[in-house]
């Protein structure tokens, strides 16, 4: 029985870059980490509350944080930023004020930018949220997986693997189902693989979703 390593952690330093970019004295490193966590949690909560209700998913692919001595730069990569920005014009300012309040940082300036991803369904986080929504609405799991793979193929990826574990379709006994399309070379370090692990709470119990996407890098 083989165990899978986390593809992101495996590739850190080579094809995978860190989501936080800053330096700190060893003594202050943990303060920086704490700050990062607060920022990310605050942003996710805000987006969850204010996103347009019809979609039901956040659509945040990742949040990158860069820090300088007097500046914190936050870049939010979203699949569908219009759902957030469209309704009210000054969402970003509001979000900025929220984060500022959360951090209590008087000395440092805060800068938030929202970037749209060109291929939303090529990102495993967004795809996982999509599948989660389907499963919550009691769509058949196989249909949901195949639909997800279809969407990803439209997004021009080299390979994708989707795995769902748990009481699938509300069955008595839990099991694991997975589908792979294309190549997913997990052992090759220079192959750029995006990965996400996501949990869904349904009325039957908790399902885990894992998605690996082999990204087309040029």
């Amino acid at each position, binding site marked *: 029985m083989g165990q899978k390593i*986390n593809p*992101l*952690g*495996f590739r*850190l*330093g080579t094809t*995978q*870059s*860190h*989501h*936080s*970019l*800053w*330096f700190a004295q*060893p003594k202050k*490193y*943990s*303060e*920086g*980490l*704490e700050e*990062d*966590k607060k920022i990310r949690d605050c942003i996710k909560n805000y987006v969850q509350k204010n996103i347009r209700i019809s979609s039901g998913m956040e659509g945040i692919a990742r949040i990158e944080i860069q820090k300088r001595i007097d500046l914190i730069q936050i870049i939010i990569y979203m699949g569908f930023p219009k759902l957030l920005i469209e309704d009210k014009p000054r969402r970003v300012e509001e979000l900025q004020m929220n984060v500022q309040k959360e951090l209590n940082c008087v000395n440092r300036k805060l800068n938030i930018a929202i970037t749209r991803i060109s291929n939303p369904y090529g990102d495993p986080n967004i795809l996982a949220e999509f599948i989660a929504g389907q499963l919550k609405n009691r769509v058949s799991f196989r249909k949901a997986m195949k639909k997800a793979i279809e969407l990803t193929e439209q997004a021009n990826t080299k390979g994708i693997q989707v795995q769902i574990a748990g009481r699938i379709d509300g069955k008595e006994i839990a099991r694991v189902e997975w589908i792979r399309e294309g190549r997913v070379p997990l052992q090759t*370090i220079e192959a750029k693989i995006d990965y996400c692990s996501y949990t869904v709470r349904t009325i039957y119990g908790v399902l885990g979703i894992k998605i690996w996407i082999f990204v087309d890098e040029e």
Partner: protein
Amino acid sequence: MAKKSLIYREKKRQKLEKKYHLIRRSLKKEISKIPSLSEKWKIHGKLQSLPRNSAPTRLHRRCFSTGRPRANYRDFGLSGHILREMVQACLLPGATRSSW
């Protein structure tokens, strides 16, 4: 996930320690300077009238993410489990996995 009450107890201790830190330190310095024993006793009485939770030895390190009191790394302020998760999720700047 630790109980919220325990986490808040720890926060209270941190606050008190910070508040009385200078007083405690100056009293201790005075004790060490004064040669007379009875004077020392008096100052010691003052020291003991401070709240107990303001003593730095009562502090205990807890994971800032989950509140877990054991297996915490001082460098990160996290317990081992959460630390590993965050490393895999690319959230720790500079941290990489060794593989050869």
